[in-house]
């Protein structure tokens, strides 16, 4: 029957293209870093990776990965509970719990899987999930797979959260779910106030620290550090695929019994390989590095301040943030595409985002800072932004 | 509903359940046997049972009522069917 279906798909793909929503991939031929080479031969400065701490091609992580390849091989060819658990997995789980000040940790193949598999084993139709409207797609999918009653509050709107908590009082357990940093605006969740409300309305909290771990808080422990809530949040999920080395892998860390329950019942954990040993080894090295010194965290914070200050002085409309995500607001979808492509010609690689990824008329360029950026990189980017911004008439 | 009719109905549903879902000759299914919670019928396979009931008894069971609990034994299923037969 494929012919008929083929036509159907072709027309759908055409629609996506006509709407200007077709995703093209740029091919990179170098390791990830502040400077990357594209397959066109062009070398550009990268300002759109989640490589916040600059660890993606870090020598020490590469060394740790190589050592593990020699001692623990390449793959485990098994899920955890059959014969796919290595001593390195256990060690990394302990290290992550130590880093976040939690009781125990469970590793997943990706944070997408951690979020996809966290709700169903823990909550039933008697319970309530109260979720921020801008939470990541993987949280949404996890919630879809769970039978709990769903409540939704407007992004970081504490009045709305309180109203939803009141509505959810008839359920047995309540779980408030929020991203630590929202990836499109870069705003940090008001966890201190969420915590107050959770206390008042008897709810648990889950925070996805994917864009905040390694970034937010003086030592990069995430929003729980920023808001002095270390050890007080029931569930934290996070990724090894962004600041923490950027390869693959995710985790859920938190209360002991919750983690134990996930090990027994969480489907992506039970039915898929864990991270390979070499990724676990690099993860262990990463936590050690972040504990030994605060150099990378300090440098990232400094870079972020430097870039934001100068961009605002240059007249750009920037969303205020405590994360390493700097949303340069342009509002118009076409303008965001035009600006991104002119910047690429100037050797600056950034991405423009527009509806439906962000709300209508809220198009923007999302700049992501990294500890891998040197001041010269930042200056070059600021100059290019200013020049192109002036050409396009978007400076205040 | 008369006792006779009720038993006839149970027998009919039981026969369908066995032919549609049970491959293993060693398994004995009674009116009380839990079907879904003991793994004989998975929730994805319930659709054919639903279609069977709707066609056989000429009723319409709303999706919200076709829950794994309501379908968990022949007795439960017949009770559910009766609710809609009597309407």
């Amino acid at each position, binding site marked *: 029957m494929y012919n008929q279906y083929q036509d159907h798909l072709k027309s759908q793909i055409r629609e996506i293209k006509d709407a200007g929503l077709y995703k093209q991939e*740029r091919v990179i031929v170098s*390791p990830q870093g502040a400077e990357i080479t594209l397959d066109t031969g062009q070398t550009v400065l990268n300002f759109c990776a*989640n490589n916040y701490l600059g660890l993606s091609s870090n020598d020490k992580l590469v060394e740790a990965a190589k050592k593990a390849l020699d001692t623990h091989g390449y793959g485990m060819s098994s899920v955890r509970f059959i014969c796919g658990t290595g001593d390195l997995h256990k060690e990394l789980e302990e290290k992550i719990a130590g880093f976040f000040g939690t009781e125990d940790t469970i590793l997943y193949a990706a944070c997408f899987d951690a979020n996809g598999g966290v709700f169903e084993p823990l909550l039933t139709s008697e319970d309530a999930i109260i979720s921020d409207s801008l939470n990541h797609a993987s949280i949404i999918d996890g919630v879809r797979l769970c039978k709990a009653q769903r409540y939704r509050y407007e992004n970081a709107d504490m009045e709305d959260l309180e109203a939803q908590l009141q509505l959810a009082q008839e359920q047995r*357990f309540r779980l408030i779910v929020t991203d630590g940093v929202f990836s499109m605006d870069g705003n940090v969740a008001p966890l201190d106030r969420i915590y107050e409300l959770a206390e008042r309305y008897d709810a648990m909290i889950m925070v996805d620290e994917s864009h905040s771990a390694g970034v937010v808080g003086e030592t990069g422990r995430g929003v729980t550090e920023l808001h002095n809530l270390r050890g007080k949040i029931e569930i934290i999920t996070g990724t090894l695929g962004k600041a923490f080395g*950027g390869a*693959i892998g995710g985790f859920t860390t938190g209360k002991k019994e919750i983690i134990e329950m996930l*090990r027994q019942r969480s489907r992506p954990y039970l039915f*898929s390989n864990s991270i390979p040993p070499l990724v676990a080894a690099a993860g262990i090295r990463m936590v050690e590095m972040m504990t030994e010194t605060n150099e990378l965290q300090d440098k990232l914070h400094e870079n972020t301040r430097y870039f934001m200050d100068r961009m605002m002085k240059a007249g750009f409309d920037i969303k205020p943030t405590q994360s390493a995500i700097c949303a340069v607001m342009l509002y118009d979808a076409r303008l965001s595409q035009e600006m991104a492509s002119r910047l690429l010609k100037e050797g600056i690689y950034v991405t423009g985002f527009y509806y439906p990824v962000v709300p209508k008329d809220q198009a923007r360029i999302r700049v992501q800072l990294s500890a891998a950026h040197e001041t010269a990189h930042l200056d070059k980017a600021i100059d290019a932004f200013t020049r192109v911004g002036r050409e396009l008439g978007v400076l205040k | 509903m008369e006792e006779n009719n009720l038993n006839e109905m149970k027998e009919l549903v039981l026969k369908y359940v066995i032919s549609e879902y049970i491959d293993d000759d060693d398994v004995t299914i009674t009116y009380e046997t839990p079907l879904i919670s003991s793994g004989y019928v998975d929730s*994805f396979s319930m659709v*054919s049972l639903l279609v069977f009931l709707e066609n056989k008894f000429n009723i319409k069971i709303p999706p919200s009522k076709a829950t794994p609990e309501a379908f968990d034994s022949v007795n439960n299923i017949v009770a559910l069917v009766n609710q809609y037969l009597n309407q």
Partner: protein
Amino acid sequence: MSYSGKTKDLYLSLLSDIRNGGIFKEERFIHSSQAADIEVEFPSGSDLKKVINMCSNNYLGLSSHPEVIRAAHEGLEARGYGMSSVRFICGTQDIHRELENRVTEFLGTEDTILFPSCMDANAGIFEAILTSEDIMISDRLVHASIIDGMRLCSAQHDTFKHSNMEHLEEKLLLHENKRIKLVITDGVFSMDGDTARLDEMVRLCDKYDALLLVDDSHASGFIGKTGRGTHEYCNVVGKIDIITTTFGKALGGASGGCVSGRKEIVEMCRQKARPYLFSNTIAPVIVSGVLKVFDILSASTERRDKLEKNASFWRAGLKDAGFILKEGNTPIVPVMLFNAKLSQDFSRDLYNEGIYAIGFFFPVVPNGQARIRTQISAGHEMHHLQTALDKFVKVGKKHGILGLTKEQIIEKYGQ
């Protein structure tokens, strides 16, 4: 929340139910590379024990193959460690494209898209290509990840009896009026080790105008004359609309999966499959390893040939000794014990004898169908298999089940 109060109590009581039900999953910590001989810490904290591994998906023995490891080393040098980005922002390297092309060529399809795992490939494919006007008709024994993918898709679903083609035909007739009908099966079924009748399924799909999806995770690399998978074994290469498979089993065993098939379907996944759009793809170092795996497989069929020989030796040995096996033609050889507790006792006794093989019972397999699932590898040498066989016989004698029929075992140990 007062977490230390009622929530904690609830989870503690659920966990103790799992323990009391005898279905608590204990992990065993492996300190060596994955191979035929491994070193295991179990229970946690005890001394390392050397055992022969009879339960990994390391079918081709490539999980710690020196050439694969060398390729991974080189990959780390040339392409760094992580991408820190999803594919469509700045997470695509040339080697990702190269691997996609290699898979396409190997499977004999039109195009391929990589996913972080086959779990994610299966979780993402249905929603990306079907809507509520369509129907998914799946074999009742498909893998859990397919079930999750179907749960996330708004298309209707129905099932057919395991490998029962008459029943599939009934279902295709029943749903004839749906816009798109997608028939879904595993190529090799992981718990039983049997093979889907793909030739027959292709014929039925043609007749009733349906698409066919095959998850070939337990077949890619070794089933079929040149290891292309179940479609090669059934002589239907080029006729399967969608193949999903993993690099986490025979093909190196690290991580990663893919959807391979019709060009437009793959293109649609790139635009719409959520795990693809919202998660990093396979790390460059893993890609480098998998590329080497394909080099090895393309150069010779030696490994899959050895696997086939090992598997038939193992199957014949167990059968001659008087064990009841699930019939099949794959390296998955389930030894049927029927009773859940017996399967656990058997597994523990084997472990004490230096043989690592896990017992499976409800809800992973149907009630009263408990078993030890053994999986054979090209990494096994004859002495591994002979030792394992001797130990299986020893433990089988201890429990007095050799030569017994199913009824006799059930009589002795209960259903």
